[in-house]
């Protein structure tokens, strides 16, 4: 081992082997999935319009550092928690780049948050100050995605309806920014509530 080229070639062979076996091979085998069905029946459902911009906000704010987007059915209690009905599958993610599968669940999983929390108003309040909707949460407030402005003439119909204790001083209102609108649209669009035949569900696993 006294020569540089020997070490270089040895290391190159080992790392390339790992690359070929664990990355290239599975991508060739399973990395060419296509969607099933068309239009409203398309699987997976497309995230479109404002929600796509919301996806960018999600990435910019680094939400992935606290939230996963993968339901796990083969183990754990995700299904009992109501975070999904079935295991997330590679097919769910084929339209996404980058993917937000995530690493850490400081907060709950968001793969199906759009089916779980269907009210836009809840999300606006939650982003403005999580203490309003989830007291005790350690999610930071995203008040910087909202605008505090003086009411001139009539109050905006888009202003947040803040509960007692969180209201701003008289004559001011809190209005969501375009980014907040997009992020909420994305939250509402996040859903894997369609069937994938081969996806493990608690029922299928029980028969095993």
């Amino acid at each position, binding site marked *: *081992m006294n020569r540089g080229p020997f070490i270089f070639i040895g290391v*190159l062979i080992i790392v390339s082997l790992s690359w070929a076996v664990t990355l290239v091979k599975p991508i060739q085998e399973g990395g060419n999935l296509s969607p099933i069905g068309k239009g409203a029946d398309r699987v997976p459902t497309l995230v479109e319009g404002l929600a796509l911009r919301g996806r960018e906000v999600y990435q*910019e704010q680094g939400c992935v*550092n606290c939230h996963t987007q993968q339901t796990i059915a083969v183990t*754990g209690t995700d299904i009992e928690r109501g975070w999904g009905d079935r295991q997330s599958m590679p097919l769910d993610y084929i339209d996404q*780049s980058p993917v937000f599968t995530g690493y850490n669940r400081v*907060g*709950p999983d968001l793969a199906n948050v759009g089916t779980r929390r269907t009210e836009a108003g809840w999300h606006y309040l939650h982003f403005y100050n999580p203490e309003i909707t989830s007291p005790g949460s350690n999610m930071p*407030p995203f008040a910087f995605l909202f605008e505090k402005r003086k009411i001139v003439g009539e109050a905006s119909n888009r202003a947040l309806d803040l509960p007692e204790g969180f209201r701003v001083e008289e004559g001011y209102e809190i209005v969501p920014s375009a980014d907040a609108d997009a992020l909420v649209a994305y939250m509402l669009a996040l859903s894997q509530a369609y069937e994938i035949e081969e996806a493990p569900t608690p029922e299928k696993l029980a028969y095993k």
Partner: protein
Amino acid sequence: MNLICNLFSSIFPSLEGDGSQREREQTIDSSMRFAVLGLIKGSVFWLLVASLLGLIVSVKLHSPTYLAEYGWLTYGKAYPAFWNALVYGWLFNAGLACVAWIIARLGGRPSGNSAVLAISTGAWNLAVIIGLFGIFKGDQNPYRMLEFPTYAAPFLFAAFIGLGIWILLAFKARAYRSSFASQWYALAGVFCFVWIYTVAQVMIFCMPAQGVFQSVIAAWFGGNLLGLVVAPFAFATIYYLIPKALGQHIVGYRQSGIAFWSWILFSSAAGLASLVNGPFPAWIASVGVVASFGLFLPLSVFTMQFLSSLFSSFSKIWDTLSVRYVFYAVVAFIVATVLTILGALREVQEMTQFSQYNDGVRYLFLVGFAGMAFTGMVYYILPRLLNKELPNPSLADLQFWVQGLGIFLVTVSLVYGGWAHGALLNGSDADTIAILKSTDTYLFLTTIGSVMFAIGNFAYAVSFVWILLSPRTEKEQSADLIEPAPELEYTHS
């Protein structure tokens, strides 16, 4: 044979014949003083940045309103900024400084080209600044250790090529044909970073793989960055420091080859174990689990070599600053690797998946093992590079204990708190906020640990600036302070 060698060396005279050993060392040192000091300066700067960000991140985790009005510093941005400043800022600068110096010293001949090293160092630090700025601006990527925006990647890559070329040239210019384990690890780390960074950038961003396979590539890259780049640099310093600073040859040095190749082999897939149960082909995660278990082989060789060598001169460990750091690094390495292996077990993953457990292990591996090894090495390099004694050894003493305790606290609270959090999150349907509240104690402990670590880092920075700026004493001006270090045990195979 001797006659032929003598004849040969009279025709091609090499540097070995000229002057004393120490004079040659000084020539090498002076040829690269500016560049290596530049790397060390960068590392100290980024260490301070990282400890500040780490403090902010850990406070935000239990007090979410802290600094919440600054959109650019929300937790989702501060967290990746912290890890990237830690790895690409601190550990890469420090590790490359150690490795460059070791390669030049072991080669026994000044290689020149120090301008390449200095310019690449500047470029690297510029790239890290661009990357961090990108994260704060909102251009981050959602993959661990690849969060730097895509426009920072070419700069980072080009700068590393410069640094790597210098290290290769220095290796090539060596006067001694035989090579020592430190040199293998240094070269392996350089090759691996170039290769895995190319793979990750091309397969995720240039020609993106479909959907979840991007996560698979990111997991592969993340594991390899730790196992095949940062860890080899740290091994290189440990293999160098034990003989040189402790005066004790590596016990069982013959087994180094086995440790080296098995470490590269098993590390290269161990990172994939984190993908279990997710929406990925299940067998990829299984490969990762098997590879993680394979790490037992190199781990046992390393443990045998390092601990036996250290214990055989145990009383000297606490008297020698550098060796004390190496001792901490070795223990941290053993604990972190055992936790990595156990953490790959399916039963354990059911508890710890998606919890802070993995962050704790990663922190111990990066900071406790690699970081402490590099710090020990920097304390060995500085007096030799500057021909000055450490102006205040008790400050460095304080630094060791405070940093050591801080790292211990952060690790214990993240690992144990993560375990407690994950066990409830994955094993019950209790309210997620209630679960979070039950782990508040650990989150507070993390903050205390981060504060201690930051204090230690501040002491380090003071020590560093002090030795840089202090004028040489008369004794230091007139004489060489450095006692000759013992020769390393070389293989002659």
